[in-house]
């Protein structure tokens, strides 16, 4: 495999799975031209005039959709670890004897380790999406036939829009749908809130199959997915385990150290002057993220400050902010708990969004860059503020990128991370895998202090005299190395064998993930 050095100094292949690749050219340096991809022309007279697109089962739908070897099949991850539809889908594909599928999920979860046997027997050629947990280990050990492609949520949309990925068949699990294919995620026994990650698939795929366990008479309102884009509807008994689709409640961390980090985050947002009337923020559902929202809420109440909008990952904590009037809107990308689902159903100001509305590289503007501050995590950061979210320091793929890369465009991007986990330093000299260029990462907040990117002189000035523990990132790293017993050794890779590539939001290749040498 031929590797070239990209603008970030990383070695990346110029061709992956037979497709030519463009090496990363720098942040905002690559602008493709031409026209967007388009789906084939369809005609309504080819569809039942009574609007009933229900077929007997998934196999029938796949057959009618023209499933063939080597096709690209997409799924979404709103059912999270409760998803049984994707596993069922590949059981059927396997049974049909189809090979070499490119699986294009918006994310994968440990429940999908069921698919390892299909990666082994050639039913699935490779994954373009995320390779979490057991799938990550499988990929890192060089066992996947093709090369994995990791994209952000926005990057996934970009790849469909500019034609890099053409989806042959989109299979969309929908908690409620009607026979015409209108579908929603905000109700039904498997309700997951919204299904925005499937929106692009419904618009760009050749064929679209809705799979539901709650078929209602036409019309299904609201229609988060429009039946006009849908070819077939399949009814199944269950989409999955509701307890694993959304948690009943999301829990704030109890760890004193994580709470300290969260408190520093809230203190920083206040001290830097970000927390003012009409501000906006992005919060996730990690324990530290939930906690900082709670600390910030107290500060907002004390000062009488109200936000204009909050982006999530919605949870009951964001819902409380909305209902107590501390924010005008929630712009929701995925719903993490039952309160989030209820709020989205009942409250018009809890808005369902998709990667198109939020993170669209080929859009005429970018929501993500309007947000005042985004608080995110990382598996590693380095002293140049570069960050990694996909591999661990032992070299194994473990997580997807999610919306993380897209959120880096906020006006103040904060990584809230412990300085080490057990004995594993999180601040390193050089990240194992580059997922986010340091120039977009403004602040790193750990329990041992806060490091501000030297590029952000404005922030450094703003928090001067605040009493916050501002430190040089190298100083924090030194402290951590002393605690952990020296600079950690690097994993051994087979540098000849790329097992996956990490895409930047514009579709260029930011870094390679190499095969782990077994010890």
């Amino acid at each position, binding site marked *: 495999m031929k590797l070239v050095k990209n603008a970030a100094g990383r070695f990346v292949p110029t061709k992956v799975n037979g497709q030519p690749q463009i090496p990363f050219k720098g942040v905002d340096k690559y602008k493709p031209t031409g026209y967007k991809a388009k789906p084939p022309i369809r005609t309504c007279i080819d569809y039942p005039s009574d609007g009933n697109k229900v077929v007997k089962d998934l196999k029938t739908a796949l057959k009618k959709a023209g499933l063939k070897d080597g096709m690209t099949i997409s799924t979404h991850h709103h059912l999270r670890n409760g998803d049984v539809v994707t596993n069922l889908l590949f059981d059927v594909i396997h049974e049909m004897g189809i090979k070499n599928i490119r699986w294009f999920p918006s994310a994968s979860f440990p429940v999908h380790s069921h698919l390892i046997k299909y990666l082994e027997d050639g039913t699935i050629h490779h994954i373009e999406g995320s390779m979490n947990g057991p799938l990550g280990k499988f990929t890192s050990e060089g066992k996947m036939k093709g090369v994995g492609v990791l994209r952000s949520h926005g990057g996934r949309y970009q790849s469909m829009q500019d034609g890099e990925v053409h989806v042959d068949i989109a299979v969309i699990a929908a908690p409620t749908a009607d026979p015409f294919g209108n579908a929603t995620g905000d109700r039904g026994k498997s309700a997951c809130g919204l299904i925005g990650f499937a929106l692009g698939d419904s618009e760009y795929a050749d064929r679209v199959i809705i799979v539901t366990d709650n078929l209602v008479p036409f019309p299904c309102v609201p229609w988060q997915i429009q039946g006009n884009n849908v070819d077939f509807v399949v009814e199944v008994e269950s989409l999955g385990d509701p307890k694993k689709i959304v948690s009943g409640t999301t829990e704030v961390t109890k760890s004193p150290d994580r709470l300290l980090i969260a408190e520093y985050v809230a203190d920083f947002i206040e001290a830097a002057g970000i927390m003012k009337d009409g501000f906006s923020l992005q919060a996730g559902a990690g324990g530290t993220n939930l906690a900082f929202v709670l600390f910030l809420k107290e500060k907002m109440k004390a000062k009488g400050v109200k936000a204009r909008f909050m982006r999530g990952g919605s949870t009951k904590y964001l819902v409380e902010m909305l209902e107590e009037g501390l924010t005008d809107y929630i712009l929701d990308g995925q719903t993490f708990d039952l309160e989030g689902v209820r709020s989205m159903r009942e409250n018009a100001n809890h808005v369902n969004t998709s990667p198109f509305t939020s993170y669209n590289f080929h859009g005429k503007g970018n929501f993500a860059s309007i947000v005042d501050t985004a608080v995110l995590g990382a598996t590693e950061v380095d002293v140049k503020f570069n960050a990694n979210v996909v591999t661990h320091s032992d070299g194994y793929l473990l997580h997807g990128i999610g919306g993380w890369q897209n959120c880096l465009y906020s006006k103040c991007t904060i990584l809230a991370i412990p300085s080490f986990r057990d*004995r594993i330093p999180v601040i390193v000299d050089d990240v194992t895998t580059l997922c986010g260029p340091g120039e977009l990462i403004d602040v790193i907040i750990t329990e*041992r202090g806060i490091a501000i990117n030297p590029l952000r002189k404005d922030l450094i000035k703003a928090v001067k005299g605040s009493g916050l523990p501002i430190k040089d990132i190298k100083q924090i790293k030194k402290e951590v190395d002393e605690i952990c*017993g020296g600079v950690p050794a690097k994993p051994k890779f087979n540098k000849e064998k790329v097992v996956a590539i990490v895409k930047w939001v514009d579709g260029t290749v930011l870094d390679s993930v190499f095969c782990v040498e077994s010890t």
Partner: protein
Amino acid sequence: MIKNLKKSSAGKRGDSVRSDCYFEIELKNSGGIKIDLKSKVNVMYGESIKQMILDMCKFFGLKDAKILLEDNGALPFVLAARFELAIKRLAHPPAPSLKEEEFNITELNKNFNKEYLLPFNEKNLYSTKKDQLRRSRLYLPGNEPKFFVNAGLHSPDGIILDLEDSVAPSEKDAAQLLVRNALRSVDFYGAERMVRINQLPKGLDDLKYIVPNNVNVILVPKCESAEQINQLEKEVEKLKKQFKVENPIFFMPIIESALGVIKAYEIASASKYNCALAIGLEDYTADIGTQRTNEGRESIFARQMLVNAAKAAGIQAIDTVFSDVADMEALRQSVLEAKSLGFEGKGCIHPRQIKIVHEAFAPTVEEIEKAKKIVLAFEEAKEKGLGVVSLGTKMIDPPVVKRAIRTIDLAILNNLLDKNWKKKQ
């Protein structure tokens, strides 16, 4: 002495274990050292872990053994404590006995009482004062290393590594080595370094692990007589001389029984090293046959007695721990009440309690204003060479001045007063 044994183990194992490890040593009669290392940080630190094990084998003269290590991210000071314990436990085997002559352990027997000491973290070489601020003291179970490393980040006035109630009787030896290593290696970030030893006389055995390793305060649980403190003082003096310890080591007797309360003054004045007298209400209420309540009427006598005894002996009075970690408002009320009774500190069992305790012990605006006037009057009198300090028409006695200075210090610490307040006056 290693006697007739083959196998030993130390540490913790299992999926839920974090930042700790498990060692097993099986003595062999030949074949050298074989290490079976299972570590989640193998890629990053596997080599350095193996190197440390080999160094320690050499240090103790362990020559032929199979060593199993299951490591869940233990830091070096933890690994060293656990492995040293596994070696020392070869003398106390639950294992089947075998004849000594079968094993090559002459050298091991010779080195058996040696201590494998990691280098002292230079950040920890500070000492404290008898009247140090002791508003908050955070209890950490002495055999739970995962809490040690970040405890100081929460800024308690003191951190207590506990060898007593939080450690299972079968793990006392484990906690002694772990606490010793922690005192040397873990950065306390300036917090006063405290150890709660076991109840005397058993607690005397704990001293050799802590006295040479720069402990600042020794907490003495279930104290009931002056003789106990005298005994402690004698032993500490002996060890200080033996190990050439120059830093002061203070004592904080904890009163936890009816008898202890009655003897409070005698205990408080038993040693010049006493810096504070603390009360432990869980055991006390049990001892007097009642339940502990939030209002605390059942312990009002004991607490007032303790404050009185401490002040009479010229040392600090420190209140019990507040055990409901979820109720911060009740904690705040409890501290305010303690402060009104004359207590100067409170025990914490969760880092989140520290900030609340400090806030509640902070002086009020009125207290600060009054203290400022007193301090200024005092300094004015000093400047003019006056022997008597007066404010308006009132004479001010030295204890009042001392208290005012303390109030000012606390106000500055809590960001309630600028440290250059006199210039701005």
